[in-house]
């Protein structure tokens, strides 16, 4: 599937990869809030996850019920091959653009 990765989707996908097999809606929401200091609603993270699943970048399974969840299972996500490729592609694009910046622009004058 030839799909692009939006900025928010990229963050969610990175976190799915980082929390391998333990990533679910709330864990990613909290990671975004804690690690990036960015306020985000649960529903937008879920929506991003469904969209990523539609694009084939993640796969999900149900599991990991707990009493705090009222005995309900989580939808746990892992990254797929195309997901990894998409991440690498964006990473490469970023690095390439970073390398085009002359050193003094960022390192030099403040």
């Amino acid at each position, binding site marked *: 599937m030839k799909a692009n990765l939006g900025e928010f989707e990229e963050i969610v996908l990175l976190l799915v990869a980082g929390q391998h097999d333990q990533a679910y809606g*709330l864990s990613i929401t909290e990671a975004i809030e804690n690690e990036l200091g960015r306020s985000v609603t*649960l529903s937008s993270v879920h929506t991003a996850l469904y969209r990523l699943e539609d694009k084939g970048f993640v796969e999900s399974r149900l599991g990991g019920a707990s009493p705090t969840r*009222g005995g*309900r*299972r*989580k939808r746990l996500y892992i990254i797929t091959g195309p997901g990894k490729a998409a991440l690498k592609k964006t990473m490469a694009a970023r690095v390439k653009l970073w390398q085009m910046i002359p050193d003094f622009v960022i390192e030099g004058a403040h």
Partner: protein
Amino acid sequence: MLSKRPPGWAERFFEFYCRDELSESILGDLQERFHHDCQKLGKMRAQLNYCLNILRFMNRYTLRKTRYSQHQNKGFGIMLYHHLQTAYRHLAKHKLYTALNIFGLAIGLASCLLIAKFLVNELSYDRFHDNTETIHRINTHFAGNSGALTKMVNTPPALIPGLGNVFPEVEKSTRLRYVTRVLLEQGDTRFYETNGFYADSLFLEIFSFPLVSGSRSTALDQPNSIVMSEAMASKYFGDDDPFGKRINLNNEVTLKVTGVLAAMPTNSHLQFDFLISFPTYEVPEGYFSDLSSWSWLGFLSYLQLKEDVDPAAMEGKLEQLYRDNTSENRADYHFNVQPLGDIYLGSGALVDDLASNLQGGNPVTLYALGIVALLILLIASFNFMNLSVAVSVSRAKEIGLRKMLGANNGGIIVQLLTESIVLATGALAIAYLLGVLAFPYVSEMMEWHIGIDWTQVLLSFPLALTIVALLGVLAGAYPAFILSGNRALAALKKDVRSGLRSGYGLRKLLIVLQFSISVALIASTIVVTKQIAHLSDHELGFDRENVLIVKLLPQDMAEHYQTLKKELLKKSFITSISRGERSMGDPWPVNNLLVDGQHESEVKQILGNHVGVDFIKTMGITIKEGRSFSEEFSADRTNSIILSEKAVDYLGLDEPIGKKVWYFPLDGPRTVIGVVEDFNFLSLHHEVSPMVLIMPFIDVDYMFVRLSQESIGQKIAALQAAWRETAPGVPLDFQFLDSRLNKLYDKEENLSSLISVFSGLAVMLACLGLYGLIAFSVSRRRKEAGIRKVLGASMISIMVRFSRQYIVLIALASLIAIPLAQYLLNYWLEGFAYRIEIGWWVYFASTTALILLAIITISHQAISAALVNPVTVLRDE
């Protein structure tokens, strides 16, 4: 800890809307979050956040899919394309029904569009003025001692100046006096002009008639000023700019052009080519009245009120003003303040004493047309529904197959509705085309004097489209729901009978309704036409044939009348000549009469006309007692009066001849020299009134010429030649009396031709629908006809069998329609003083005509059914 639970109702709401496969994980996440929040923010905030999140989750990923949208969601465009394609194939397969359906509906819609345009135009009268809401006209009502209330649009000349300082609620006011006939002259160009007013200076400030040049506020201020239309100006000044130019009036005064009017909007109750400033007006000699009069009802008065003034509250004050200024103690005198917006349609009961070209519409026509439009739309819609239902039955198999392949009810409903909407929209497009093409002819035939307004056409589009889409849905709904509800297996079985039966009751009902409407319309057409004919043939009490009315300028009349009369009477084809102030067909003015010796409070109001010697002979009025005016009695000129029979009764005279009667405002009594039989000089909407004739003491401008009976065409030419010889330079501007009288029934004739045309259309549409239905039913019953023939049925018996049910339906329809039509027609007839009786034959004829039409419609198909070759139709069994 675990006792803290999120609100259960929110959870249930979520489960209601969310798809099952996502619901568990999301609710889990939400509850976990709720616990965190409880610890960090407290229970209240946690619950609030929970609820907000439940709402935030509502999006296209989480919402449950309906069964239908599961299929449609991704490929809506594709499905729509598919629906349109099958719709096209289906319609192309049933060309006859498609054509009947589309054209039937298109004709119906086009009629409605035309009628709507007319109605919109009628309702738009006088709305173009900036001050429409605050402009009012003052009308005079008086009862007289006969008790009958007379309502006039005319008011005395002193009224407007008298408003002065007494009426703070009046912003501006103006008077109009109609121009009888003036001669305008500029260089070599001379024309008689009649279509104008003398107008007070504020007239153009109150009314927003468009001006090309000149100032609204000053154009009519000075004496001897004229404001004229562009068309009129180009008659006198050619291409020159008329502004500031001079023009001669009646060879007496020179007027200065102080303004030029743009084309007059046709939707104005005041229509004029020119306005002359009021101070220019001089009261003609012999009127015994002047502009300070409070009793001379000869002017139109308009007010522009301040905002929020209650016009009804002014009426009492106006009456007080009248009583303060006049010595006559007339308690029956009332002033009515009529809003400008009501004038055009609301003046039917008002008399205009001055015959001053005021436009008036007839609300009855509007209602009648509105109803007819609605009925046509109903018939066309019923046709559309009927044909749709009938034809869709043949698709039961297709639908069954679709269902086998997995289509659900929703999909099939959408498909059938798409078809029906496409059809209706197509019909609308054709309707607009038809409407635009037919409009100029209809407009001319009905004398609407309006053109197509393309912005209006564009603006009507959304509304028309909505109505038609709704119609499409309604027409499509029945078959759609019936067919989609059938079980696939039943539909696939060859069950022709059940197919024919479905929707049968509805179809019958619709046919009955359609034909009820048709019967009612045919009956109305007959009655309206008969009534109009009755009016124009009714005995008027005088001989309307072969009389010419010639209009002359007062000075020409004074100078040439006697010579013309003497010379023309030498011609053998001219039997009699006379003259008068008013013609037959004009309203006659009201006069005050008092029998000599009675007290002044016994004054009676009677219509009167100033006429010359031989008037009674020329008009063919019958003398009952006494004699006519004569040259031999010089006293006739000043001291004689002729009464009608009703006037004799009204005045309460026993032996009228020789009695003396005071005719105000003349001094001295007049002797009754004759009594004539009653005659009806005005339209037969009105009863014959009491009336009197006296010889003229003012300038009169009508000349009446009676010709002998045969070959009128040649006589006109001979008359013109003789006229030119006797009075060169005096124009012979004539009109036939009977055509002038017929003009009084123009409105009814228009109504009658409109109703005829549209009832014709409606009946045609109903027959079209009937044809489609029977064609369809015959096509489904060919096999039955074949079997019957094989078993020995005759052609006739098959024809009868196939058509009799429709005849029964039409008979039933008549039974419903007759009482309704009877009621409505009687209501309409009550507006006439002389009316026809509606005989039973009217309904009999309408029903018979309709049944005959239906038989003709059906016969083609019935014959084709009777002619089937059993071998062909039964081969595949």
